């Protein structure tokens, strides 16, 4: 159970951003001989307030408010628990039944059935005559998986082969109701996969292969189908039963993923890792069929029904150094993405952005497009332990991203960042039966993103910022239970900042200083 009040920026509260959460779950495990069966269920339920500052306005009014340093009406904002419209109510139910058999010759065979129910309701600010939600999304997922972990094959004393193979089937049904936006859909998929790992004395080689096939059927009321036709997304006769009351648009996707990786130990401290891989994902239904005002963005969004799967070709390598007093890790990677599915402004033949006239004013048109994208970057970290109880840590990351189709920068790519931390952990049991007592202090510097493309965005990236954080924690045994206590403080310097990767940056600042006390109780029983 979790209740959070709306946080405040250094200058004003983020009105109506409270959170109320309930998390419950239980698992039952039965073991009989070589067979083990697990049954588990978990439910997550949350009411999430949406900042009153996040508002859709027509293009002119939206740009005018971008100029102001604080949201209008923010003098009335309050940091409180109460959640009002606009808000979201979210429920996830997850049930799982798994049986595992130890087969003496083959290895371990498992069969898993899982069911998931996801439900999201979105409540907008409306007149009192309307009491229900404005958006209602419900997704039901059934999945069946059979997997075999084969027994290690010992080729020589120093050469072993481990691996697994499996097959899965998935069926999904999605129901949507609300303002015109996305269709209902059903989908069916199947996959087979295998992976093997060759483990030697000072090296490892791993290879994997996975094949997926999926069929999706999107169901439209006649009126909604006609809207896609009028928007130019679909031809009038593109889908089965286009003249009927209900129309079904089918699409089928086949994707292949493969990876090959190797690790080489160089002496006692150094190791080098390299990986080549390719992976594909089919477009999401909203990327295909979106048609309407996007609920999170002041734009008119149009999907692209004939999108093909997005395919990533990735290469990465990592060097690590491990020493009792010092650990260093550095990675470099490059990902080339063909048919990268990108939600971005639409331009006409002259290169000017397209605007649509709606009953609420003029809004920019965004479409899903398939572009070729290149991401590459480096990240790394150093951890030094000059004393057993003292740890110093420095981590940095840098990523570059290009849209190769029109040679521009991609938006919402994280800026360069550097984080340093110092932590002290009590080496032995402290007073009052406290264990694992620790204290840490961290500083994070995030640079301003200088590589941006304003035509695909609404506002230039926000300024660089520095955040200071601290944490204190301990745990104690109480009979059979363990109680963990942690006190966490963030943005302790009360820095006013906006995050380039957050939608909130168009409307308001990020929260100022915050402190949170977390008490967790862990219990277990055996019979």
């Amino acid at each position: 159970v979790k209740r959070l009040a709306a946080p405040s920026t250094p200058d004003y509260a983020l009105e109506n951003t409270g959170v109320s959460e309930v998390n419950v779950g239980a698992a039952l495990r039965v073991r009989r001989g070589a067979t083990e069966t697990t049954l588990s269920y978990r439910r997550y339920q949350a009411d999430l307030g949406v900042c009153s500052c996040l508002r859709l306005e027509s293009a002119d009014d939206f740009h005018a408010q971008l100029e102001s340093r604080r949201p209008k009406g923010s003098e009335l904002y309050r940091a409180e628990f109460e959640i009002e419209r606009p808000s979201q109510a979210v429920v996830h139910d997850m049930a799982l039944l798994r049986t595992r058999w130890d087969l003496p010759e083959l290895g371990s065979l498992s069969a898993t059935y899982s069911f998931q129910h996801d439900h999201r309701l979105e409540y907008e600010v409306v007149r009192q005559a309307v009491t229900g939600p404005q958006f209602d999304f419900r997704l039901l997922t059934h999945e069946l998986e059979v997997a075999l972990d084969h027994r290690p094959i010992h080729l020589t004393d120093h050469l072993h082969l481990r691996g697994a193979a499996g097959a899965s089937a998935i069926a999904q049904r999605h129901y949507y109701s609300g303002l015109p936006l996305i269709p209902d859909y059903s989908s069916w998929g199947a996959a087979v996969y295998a992976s093997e790992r060759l483990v030697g004395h000072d090296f490892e080689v791993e290879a994997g292969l996975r094949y997926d096939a999926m069929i999706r059927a999107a169901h439209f009321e006649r009126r909604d189908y006609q809207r896609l036709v009028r928007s130019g997304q679909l031809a009038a006769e593109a889908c089965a039963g286009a003249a009927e009351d209900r129309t079904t648009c089918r699409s089928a996707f086949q994707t292949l993923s493969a990876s090959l990786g190797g690790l080489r130990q160089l002496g006692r401290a150094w190791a080098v890792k390299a990986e080549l891989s390719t992976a594909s994902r089919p477009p999401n239904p909203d990327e295909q069929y979106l048609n309407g005002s996007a609920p999170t963005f002041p734009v008119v969004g149009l999907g692209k029904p004939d999108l093909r799967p997005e395919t990533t070709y990735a290469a990465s390598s990592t060097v690590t150094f491990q020493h009792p007093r010092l650990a260093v890790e550095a990675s470099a990677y490059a990902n080339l993405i063909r048919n990268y599915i990108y939600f971005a402004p639409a331009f006409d033949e002259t290169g000017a952005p397209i605007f649509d006239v709606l009953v609420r004013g003029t809004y920019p048109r965004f479409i899903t497009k398939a572009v070729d994208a290149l991401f590459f970057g480096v990240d790394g970290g150093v951890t030094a332990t000059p004393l057993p109880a003292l740890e110093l840590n420095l981590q940095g990351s840098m990523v570059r991203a290009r849209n190769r189709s029109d040679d521009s920068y991609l938006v919402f790519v994280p800026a360069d960042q550097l984080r340093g931390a110092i932590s002290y952990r009590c080496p032995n049991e402290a007073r009052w039966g406290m264990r694992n007592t620790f204290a840490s202090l961290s500083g994070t510097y995030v640079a301003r993103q200088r590589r941006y493309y304003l035509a695909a965005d609404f506002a230039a990236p926000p300024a660089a910022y520095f955040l200071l954080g601290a944490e204190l924690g301990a745990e104690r045994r109480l009979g059979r239970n363990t109680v963990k206590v942690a006190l966490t403080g963030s943005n302790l310097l009360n820095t006013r900042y906006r995050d380039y990767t957050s939608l909130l940056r168009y409307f308001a600042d990020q929260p100022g200083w915050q402190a949170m006390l977390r008490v967790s109780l862990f219990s277990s029983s055996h019979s």
Partner: protein
Amino acid sequence: MRTTALLGSLLALPSLLGACDDGGGGDGNENEVITAVTLTLTPGGGGAAVTAVFNDPDGDGGAAPTIDPIVLAVGKTYNGVVTFENRLEAPAEDITLEVADESDEHQIFYTGTAVNGPASNRPGAPLTQAYLDQDRNGLPIGLASAFTTAAGTGQLTITLRHMPPLNNVAVKTAGASTAVRDAAGFSTLGGSSDAQVTFNVTVQ
């Protein structure tokens, strides 16, 4: 051997010193659907009424809306009445009634190059607008207005603004029209726009 292990029961109770968690996320402020805005202008002292409709029969996305031009005669005073409908429903739903019921949280603003009035500082514009109705707090609503005409052309933007109270403080205040006039738009006014449509106006 039979072993049953029961795991679970994880309880996390955070309490607050300042305030917590990431802010924001989620969606913006969509309102109920309006697909048609109609302005009916009846000349004082008799004559045929002029009706102009902004109509987007399939809502956001889909086909572009149709927008009638407004053509008026010089030197007259018209009684202007605006209505809002959801024509996605059959029969069409009259949203005007809901606006009238909650008139203390709503106001209709008349702006653009074609109009001079409380929310638009354009002396010499072809239309001069004055509010004819009031809510229970004595503030203008704008469902009914008087338009006086002079020769000229321009654009008239009609905005239905929903301004529900925030933390029990009224957002619709006496200064609303002036705020729109001074900012030449809605960037300093609370609430959100349920409708904002623009007509071409010719007074000849």
